[in-house]
């Protein structure tokens, strides 16, 4: 109740006028009432009674018969009082320890929640190990990389993997794919999904369990494709609008466990004159995404581009969108090339160590690098592991 007026979520002009009129705490605003705040001087007692009953009763409601002129209309005054009352009411329920408090808990409870939460596997066991089991829910994961290194491939793989039924170790969720670059190819998703279904069928045949076979009936190519919700955003306004409307969409589709934004850098990099506006918008976007990830228990995956930073003696590739964007993602993966091998580096993570692993893009999707067989090469030259794998597949 002693909440400072400056800290209430009111419109700035309204707040400035309240502070200038001398109100210090929310208590004082509530005590004065709407009629005291507004400009009109002739108000009937009946109207005042209506105001007080509409806003509910508080213990210290002092009826003030004279008015303080601070120059706001009655509607603004009523609105301000609604906000103040809402804030104070939710404060009261929170301090009373009501179970509706969604975001406050002890570390022990969080540990139990985390251990019960699943991961979204990537089908590349080395990457899963580096990430601690897979892509984590309730966190933002950012994938940065040069063009052609496999970021969109991983996103499409994750959109399929999130739908794996629970008996096979997946989350049985749905996916939202927001595309800004137009790089989502449906036929590629068909290939990846077919490989995934085949993989699960092989497991079911090996284990022959009831629930595996039942789950396989619903886990088919059509169902996978129908549970990927695709949005195409052409510029940053559409992207921002989509992200701000996403909570409503997710409340309707409560099974969504993955939100992919493929190409968050693209709409913000070209055609942007005001860089400080860009930083503000990106930070606001990051906060909105973490709220979505947290409230709906979903994983948010973003892809970013790389840019060159020219130093004094050398130039390095760094993730795009600037320094402040680096703080937005909770987990950051950087994909890069080393001669002909694709490597993934875990650059930032709150719970895993930094490390680099090789990976592979096959016709079936995102996979591990197969270790080269020991016996096969009498000449002793190093063969490209990619070539080896293709030969094995052709057998």
């Amino acid at each position, binding site marked *: *109740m*002693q*909440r*400072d007026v*400056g*800290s*209430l*979520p009111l419109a*700035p002009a309204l707040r400035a006028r309240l502070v200038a*009129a*001398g*109100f*210090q705490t929310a208590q004082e605003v509530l005590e004065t009432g709407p009629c005291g705040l507004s400009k009109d001087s002739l108000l009937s007692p009946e109207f005042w009674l209506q105001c007080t009953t509409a806003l509910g009763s508080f213990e210290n409601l002092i009826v003030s018969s*004279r008015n*303080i002129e601070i120059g706001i209309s009655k509607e603004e005054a009523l609105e301000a009082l609604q906000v103040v009352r809402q804030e104070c009411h*939710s*404060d009261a329920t*929170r*301090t009373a*320890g009501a179970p509706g408090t969604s*975001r*406050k*808990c*002890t*570390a*022990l409870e*969080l*540990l139990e*929640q*985390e*251990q019960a939460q699943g991961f979204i596997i990537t089908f590349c066991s080395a990457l899963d190990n580096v990430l601690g089991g897979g892509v984590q829910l309730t*966190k933002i994961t950012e994938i940065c990389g040069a063009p052609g290194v496999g970021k969109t491939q991983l996103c499409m793989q994750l959109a399929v993997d999130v739908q794996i039924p629970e008996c096979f170790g997946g989350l049985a969720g749905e996916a939202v794919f927001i595309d800004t670059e137009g790089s989502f190819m449906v036929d590629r998703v068909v290939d990846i999904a077919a490989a995934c279904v085949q993989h699960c069928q092989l497991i079911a045949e090996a284990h022959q369990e009831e629930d595996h076979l039942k789950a396989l009936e619903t886990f088919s190519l059509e169902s996978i494709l129908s549970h990927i919700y695709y949005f195409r955003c052409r510029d940053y306004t559409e992207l921002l609008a989509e992200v701000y409307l996403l909570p409503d969409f997710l409340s309707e589709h409560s099974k969504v466990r993955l939100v992919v934004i493929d190409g968050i850098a693209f709409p913000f990099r070209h055609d942007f004159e005001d860089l*400080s*506006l860009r*930083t*503000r918008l990106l*930070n606001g976007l*990051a*906060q909105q995404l973490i709220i979505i990830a*947290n409230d709906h228990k979903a994983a948010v995956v973003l892809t970013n581009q790389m840019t060159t*930073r*020219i*130093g*004094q003696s050398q130039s*390095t590739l760094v993730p795009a969108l600037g*320094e*402040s964007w*680096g*703080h*937005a993602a*909770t987990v950051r993966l950087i994909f*890069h090339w080393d001669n002909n091998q694709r490597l993934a*580096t875990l*650059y*930032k993570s*709150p*719970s895993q*160590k*930094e490390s*680099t692993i090789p990976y592979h893009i096959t016709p079936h999707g995102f996979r591990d690098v197969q270790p080269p067989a020991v016996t096969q090469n009498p000449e002793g030259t190093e063969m490209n592991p990619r070539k080896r794998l293709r030969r094995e597949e052709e057998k």
Partner: protein
Amino acid sequence: MALLRAGLCPGLTAEMVPLLRASGLRTVVDFVSSDLEEVAQKCSLSYKALVAVRRVLLAQFSAFPANGADLYEELKSSTAILSTGIASLDKLLDSGLYTGEVTELMGVPGSGKTQVCLSIAASVSLCLKQHVLFLDSTGGFTASRLYQMLQAQPEDEEEQLEALQRVQVVRVFDVYEMLRALQELRDSLSQQVLSSTGPLKVVLIDSVSAVIYPLLGGKQSEGLALMMQLARELKMLAREFSLAVVVTNQVTRDSSAGPLKPALGRSWSFVPSTRVLLESKETTWEKANMQRIASLAKSPRQPTGLQVELDIGNSDVQELSPATPTQGL
């Protein structure tokens, strides 16, 4: 700047308040700084009554001056120094975190700010058995990592689980929610509700710049005001309830090749009394490693520019072991 209200002090009656308001005196400050003879004439109130009211209001609302020696005694008895759990960081901070002050950790993404915060939470909740409040605004708090750090300590599992219960985590993703959470904390501490907060000693905020950044700059005027509101809340909490407040901040560059500087600008730089910059030993992400350098950028007690090395890769954040000679370079 309290409003003049009937019943604020014994002499201020309900009839006097509207008369005073009509002559333009709305707040206590207006009243005590006005010429009482004029007011008595304009409002046709008794001069003696007005003088009596002024005396009472001054006694009620003005701050008391304190003797330097008394202040020192009070500080000695109420300030505690909390170890962060990392010996080298303690050395940097002049033996640990001081209660009553705001300490800031800043660094580029991935420099280990959240790891140091988790280490502080682990050490305070396990070794010192005090409660910790963690305000998380980036989603970076991972309970399993905190548990890993606790498991590295020699205490047994029951004590570790108890320590986990002493860490309270609040997820706030918006500046208003953060202000509300701090306000709730202040209410519960002043009412001394022991069960929920316990003997709270440390408040960790990771990070404060994530909630303020979307509001600063451009044509918005409220960003700075909210930032200062937050700063005032933190300092008041630290001072009044003898808490150690630790915040994490980002770093930015002026131009793409300029030096790194802390985010949130010059106004915020006056808020923390101690600032520690965390950076990686290697400059590029291609040669990633676990070693970090912590340097002191601002301190009321130590000379700035002190540097220590930390290792954030293991089960807990440790100081770097002395370099063993490698076998072949």
